[in-house]
């Protein structure tokens, strides 16, 4: 079992790629850079597949498979090893990360072909893969935190990739700072875990947490605190209310980065972490409710903003925030496997949507405003058809992957809480609307750009192949859970069951097949599908049938439209409440008073006192030897008398 024994190979491969390209890439030809970057990710994917093969053969009592390689920190009673762990959840994440990551690497070789920062880009991207693999493979919270911070760093570097653009560096800083808030919560949670359980290993912490009594509502116990602190971290990383503001701005980065980091993998790290710590959350129902409500509200909130965005990537960004909200909703109602399932299908269809959007932008020569697109269907058919598949998937069209995962989440929510379910269904309708709006605005109708200047062209094959592969996955990726609908087995859930075994009492798990056909019918004619259809209908009505309607609507509901297109003015609110006071305090108090007054004052004061006293004392140095001799004499007399006085 080579890969299971040497698990560190998996993260090491991209790290080597990043290091090689980062250190030597400057002297290499572009083709070598490409080879290094691609082969490291390809090998990582191959290793992941081989790992799955070995993992399947593993006896159940050896799962989770944990390997400790060396003691990392050992201080007093505290000990953290460099130890990696594989269980069903890890395997799912590994396949998503390496698989989608690999496809996006291939895509990037064409997308970034003419960029002067080609080598830097792939170095960062490989580094990201390394940290992401470390995050999902880590067997304790501390190592997970290393990966967690590492992906944040790579995200920052890649958002600010076009560092000459002021907006890009600002967006990078914003992402970094907002994530700091979340990470602060995460590290506090980790410290509290250490304090409570004395260790950070999943293998020890989780069973002990499971053994603790459930903390009922109204009783604020340590598990609730831990869970909420961890969720603060997850909300930062996975862009949930109120820390979602960085993700839309993160679209300043190159589009493959948006696809890989800000849609498919990194932003789902929060969901992964919550799923990993599900034991803690299950014993803290208050925290679960918070997760569910925040997730649901985020889903709705972001979807409404997405309705009126005009930048193709911004729509997708808000859509990502919204879908992440769904995942947290699933976790919050105890359907962790549904959440992870949606994480997987989302990685497929949202990765595809971003890549297709990148292809559109590529075809339009850098244009991102959907108002200046239109009628691209004939010119870039491959992009259109793959994007259509992804749109159908995210809109929850029966048969496509998003249908299965979203349906499961809403099913679980329905059993937990009707208001949340209603909001979830409403969000499903909104999702369908804004996605088809995007599709119609981009690909249908008459071209709204200057055809003499913009030469629309289909992307090269290395960009189209990942699109097609992801389209296949976006369509078919959900069928692993499909038989559930006609009373069969939900393979995905069954597969993850060992991980979430303690969540067995959670509503979704192995829902007793109550007359398969009814359930199928229920799902097909269920509210989410109807909501999706309504959304599609409105999108078609507004943007194909009578394109004048949106303008009229915007005019008649001007305040509402302004509120939505202004993104609820949350950025402005944060700027007014947090950023500006902070800048003011930094400027007026910390800079001019504390720094210049106290710190500089002390330092300069010491210097001035020395200089001025030196000036005075200098007068004593006449240069005349006899004066010095006299001083020596005086000194001797003084010290001798002192000595005599003290002794006597």
């Amino acid at each position, binding site marked *: 079992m080579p890969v299971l024994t040497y698990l560190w190979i998996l993260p090491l491969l991209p790290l080597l790629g990043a290091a090689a390209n980062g250190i030597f890439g400057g002297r290499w030809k572009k083709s070598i850079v490409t080879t290094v970057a691609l082969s490291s990710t390809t090998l990582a994917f191959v290793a992941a597949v081989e790992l799955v093969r070995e993992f399947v053969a593993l006896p159940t009592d050896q799962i989770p498979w944990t390997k400790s390689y060396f003691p990392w920190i050992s201080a007093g009673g505290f000990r953290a090893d460099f130890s990696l762990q594989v269980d069903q959840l890890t395997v799912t994440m590994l396949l998503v990360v390496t698989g989608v990551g690999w496809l996006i690497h291939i895509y990037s070789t064409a997308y970034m072909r003419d960029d002067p920062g080609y080598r830097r880009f792939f170095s960062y991207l490989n580094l990201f893969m390394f940290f992401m693999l470390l995050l999902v493979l880590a067997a304790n919270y501390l190592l997970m935190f290393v990966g967690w911070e590492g992906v944040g760093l790579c995200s920052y570097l890649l958002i600010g990739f076009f560092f000459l653009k002021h907006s890009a560096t600002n967006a990078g800083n914003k992402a970094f700072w907002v994530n700091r808030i979340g990470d602060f919560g995460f590290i506090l949670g980790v410290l509290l875990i250490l304090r409570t359980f004395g260790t950070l290993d999943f293998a020890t912490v989780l069973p002990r947490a499971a053994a603790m009594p459930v903390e009922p509502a109204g009783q604020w116990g340590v598990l609730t605190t831990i869970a909420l602190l961890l969720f603060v971290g997850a909300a930062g990383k996975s862009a949930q209310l109120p820390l979602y503001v960085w993700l839309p701005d993160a679209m300043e980065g190159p589009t493959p980065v948006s696809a890989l980091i800000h849609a498919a993998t990194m932003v789902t790290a929060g969901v992964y972490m919550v799923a990993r710590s599900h034991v803690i959350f299950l014993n803290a129902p208050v925290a679960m409710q918070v997760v569910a409500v925040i997730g649901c509200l985020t889903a709705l909130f972001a979807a409404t903003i997405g309705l009126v965005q005009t930048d193709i990537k911004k729509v997708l960004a808000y859509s990502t925030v919204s879908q992440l909200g769904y995942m947290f909703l699933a976790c919050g109602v105890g359907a962790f496997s549904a959440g992870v399932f949606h994480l997987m299908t989302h990685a497929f269809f949202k990765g595809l949507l971003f890549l297709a959007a990148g292809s559109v932008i590529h075809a339009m020569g850098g244009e991102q405003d959907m108002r200046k697109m239109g009628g691209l269907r004939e010119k870039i058919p491959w992009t259109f058809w793959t994007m259509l598949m992804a749109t159908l998937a995210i809109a929850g069209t029966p048969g496509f992957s998003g249908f299965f995962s979203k349906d499961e989440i809403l099913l679980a929510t329905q059993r937990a809480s009707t208001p949340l379910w209603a909001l979830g269904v409403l969000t499903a309708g909104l999702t369908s609307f804004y996605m088809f709006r995007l599709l119609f605005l981009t690909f249908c109708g008459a071209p709204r750009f200057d055809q003499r200047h913009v030469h629309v062209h289909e992307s090269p094959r290395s960009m189209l192949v990942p699109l097609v592969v992801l389209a296949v996955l976006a369509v078919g990726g959900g069928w692993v859970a499909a038989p559930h609908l006609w009373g069969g087995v939900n393979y995905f859930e069954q597969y993850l069951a060992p991980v979430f075994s303690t969540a067995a009492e959670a509503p979704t798990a192995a829902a007793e097949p109550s007359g398969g056909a009814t359930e199928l019918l229920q799902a097909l004619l269920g509210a989410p599908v109807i909501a999706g259809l309504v959304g599609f209908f409105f999108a078609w009505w507004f943007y194909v049938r009578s394109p004048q309607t949106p303008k009229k609507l915007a005019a008649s509901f001007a305040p509402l439209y302004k509120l939505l297109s202004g993104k609820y003015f949350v950025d402005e609110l944060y700027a007014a409440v947090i950023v500006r006071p902070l800048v003011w305090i930094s400027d007026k108090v910390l800079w001019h008073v504390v720094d210049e007054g106290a710190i500089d004052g002390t330092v300069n004061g010491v210097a001035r006192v020395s200089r001025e006293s030196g000036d005075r004392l200098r007068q004593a*140095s*006449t*240069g*005349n*030897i*006899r004066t010095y*001799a*006299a001083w020596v*004499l005086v000194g001797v007399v003084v010290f001798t008398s002192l000595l005599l006085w003290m002794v006597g």
Partner: protein
Amino acid sequence: MKRGVRLDVDLNFSGGVVVPTSYYLLLSGVLFGLGVVAFVFKRNIITIFMSIELMLNAVNLAFVAFSRALGQLQGQVFVFFVIVVAAAEAAVGLAIIIVISRNRGTLNVERVDSLKH
């Protein structure tokens, strides 16, 4: 070497008139004081140099006196060290004085005050 000449120091000297230690110390103090006064008030470098020697020898005298009074040899040994150092110092010091005299054409310390700058 004739018999009767005492080569070894009789630390328990007990013949003839005993000069009290305080006399030696008084002489040493007077010599040292003269050296100091000369060092501070004379202008000629050579004289200053000589006053240093005077002080050194005043100290030597005190050492020897104490050595005898306390019956210990260390004081005697120390005197030799002082003499050796004084010889070395004289060599270096005189060389410096010659250089100063050549460069400045004077031996007046009032004129050798460039340490100020």
